[in-house]
């Protein structure tokens, strides 16, 4: 077991699966030059046929991954940034998500589409997206959004071995986080299983992707207020581990959903609705969502940073939900 970063976890997962299965190959824009450090040494080790630089043609090469998957390959597409998925919505939604269904099970599409959510870095509205919720509304796509290196490696390896299409959203705010990660080449984390990142008794904080480390910091700070927070990371958004979330909320009676994406129709909204529909009787207070508001992300860091779920906003929400005094609003 070695201590590695989130980016190194991606690199390891891909390298191990490329070595294990000759039907696995990678394509994407500028992956040979290893922009982010997730393809270190790949060209030398696996060759240019399997490590393919593509034209800037997302609809083309993401759709081509679908076609290659249908004939028995297992492509890993590196779509770089999550907003680069938008030109490929046609192929993702009409071909990749639906081909197995519309042809009555004749098609099989084992492929992974990776993209980074590169927010909080003054990249302005077109480069700061966290769009997983859009794809949650499209049946046929599994979605993973890990928050630490261990989950990243185990889930990505499971995604590459999965026979369904998987979208992997990698949170840029987690890139440099380090953790102990197993070296076992068959270390997998099952898709569809959430994880209790911290146990607590007063409030359940269900946090997504980069929201998880923020929620854990908030939980630590809440100890001073004598508020015991449980932090749940669904890790997979489709299929969502509703049982784990509901079990925790039934225990604490309170739920806060922390989601770095925009508010409306968010993953937080879906989780909140699930709690209200299925654990209403256990709730001691209304569910609270802590998300990015429905505005775009501005360039200037001064006005960008406060828009995301912060430790302060989560702490305030927790105090509100347990009926404790809340710090005066400063914004």
């Amino acid at each position, binding site marked *: 077991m070695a201590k590695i970063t989130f980016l190194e976890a991606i690199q390891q997962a891909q390298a191990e699966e490329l070595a294990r299965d000759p039907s696995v190959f990678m394509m994407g824009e500028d992956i040979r030059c290893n922009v982010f450090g997730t393809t270190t040494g790949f060209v030398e080790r696996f060759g240019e046929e*399997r490590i393919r630089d593509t034209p800037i043609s997302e609809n083309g090469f993401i*759709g081509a991954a679908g076609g*290659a998957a*249908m004939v028995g*390959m297992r492509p890993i597409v590196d779509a770089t940034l999550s907003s680069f998925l938008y030109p490929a919505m046609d192929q993702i939604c009409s071909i990749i998500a639906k081909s197995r269904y*519309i*042809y009555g099970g*004749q098609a099989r599409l084992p492929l992974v589409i990776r993209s980074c959510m590169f927010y909080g870095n003054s990249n302005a509205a077109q480069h700061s997206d966290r769009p997983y919720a859009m794809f949650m509304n499209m*049946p*046929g796509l599994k979605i993973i959004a890990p928050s630490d290196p261990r989950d990243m490696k185990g889930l990505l390896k499971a995604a590459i071995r999965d026979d369904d299409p998987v979208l992997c959203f990698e949170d840029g705010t987690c890139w440099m986080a380090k953790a102990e990660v197993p070296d076992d080449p068959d270390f997998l984390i099952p898709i569809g299983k959430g994880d209790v990142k911290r146990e607590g008794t007063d409030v359940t904080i269900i946090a997504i992707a980069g929201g998880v480390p923020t929620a854990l910091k908030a939980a630590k700070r809440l100890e001073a207020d004598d508020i015991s927070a449980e932090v749940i990371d669904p890790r997979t958004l489709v299929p969502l581990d509703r049982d784990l979330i509901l079990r925790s909320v039934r225990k604490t009676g309170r739920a806060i959903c922390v989601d770095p994406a925009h508010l409306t129709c968010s993953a937080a909204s879906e989780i909140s609705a699930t709690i209200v529909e299925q654990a209403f009787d256990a709730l001691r207070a209304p569910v609270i969502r802590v998300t990015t508001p429905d505005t775009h992300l501005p360039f200037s860091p001064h006005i960008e940073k406060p828009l995301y779920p912060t430790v302060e906003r989560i702490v305030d929400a927790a105090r509100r939900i347990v009926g404790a005094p809340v710090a005066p609003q400063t914004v």
Partner: protein
Amino acid sequence: MHDAQSSIGDNDRRLEKYRRMQRIRQFETKAEAIHAAGEIPGALHTYAGMEASGVGACMALRPDDYMVGTHRSHGHPIAKGAMLRPLMAELLGKSTGICRGKGGSMHLSDFSVGSLGETSIVGSGGPVAAGAALGAKLQGLDRVALCFFGDGASSEGAIHEGMNLAAVWKLPAIFVCENNRFGMSTPTSDAVAGEHVADRAHGYGIPGVIVDGQDVDAVEQAVREAVDRARAGKGPTLIETKTYRYADHAVNMGRDLTPRGPEHDEWVGRDPIRLYRARLIEEGVGDDALSAIDEAVRQEVADALQYARDSAYPDFEEAFDHVFVDRLPIPADVRAHA
């Protein structure tokens, strides 16, 4: 323009071409009639008039070669050799349908004959065909992937992204634009800049070939050259088959949306099946042999319809199958009222 002066292939292959065109025509004639009578739900887009394009192209392929088609989906699988029973059952929404009743008329894709989809989003087959060709190349197989698309799709980015990928990676792909002169109600001349879709091949540094889409031999010959080129590792070809759709965009819609010009009668006068029949007879094939095929196909279509009618509708669980490899649970309230 590619023109065939005489038929190509041995006698069996020539009769098979004729048979496949007849199968498409008669399958659709029957489908249109029962659609008018309300037996087929949804929209029905027929391929009548275009049979030589699909059959000529598919006769140049091997059974293990791949093919991607369009919403006008009845012709391609039959051209590639599919059985009629599961196709007719699909039109009727039955559990024995090729897509188990989940695709319908726009998606008659039979993977057992190499199809990888008949997709009803215009142009979306382009990247899929490029990807299948890439897959074959990476697997060291000498298979090719053929993408059928329409003149309407030639304005879609997906087709061009697929062609560019195939060209830059020298993939074994063939792009066949079936130019039937209309994108729904819009004449090609109002939608496509430049005279021919095939001219766009020059932008990708690949051959662009124009072929008489009513001449099944000419289409087969053009596609065969493209297939040879693709298998030899020399990359894709763009072929434009100049053809014509007899019916409206979709049949039985109540009014004809397609603006017909004086050329309509001329096109109908060059019916691909009649043309080919005349050629075969001229070359010594007996009228009896062809009429026997006509009759056998009539029986095959009648059998397919009977099979479809006798088949059950899908169980409700089917609606939740194939979203993923594992079947989805059915919500209790939905099941209660299904």
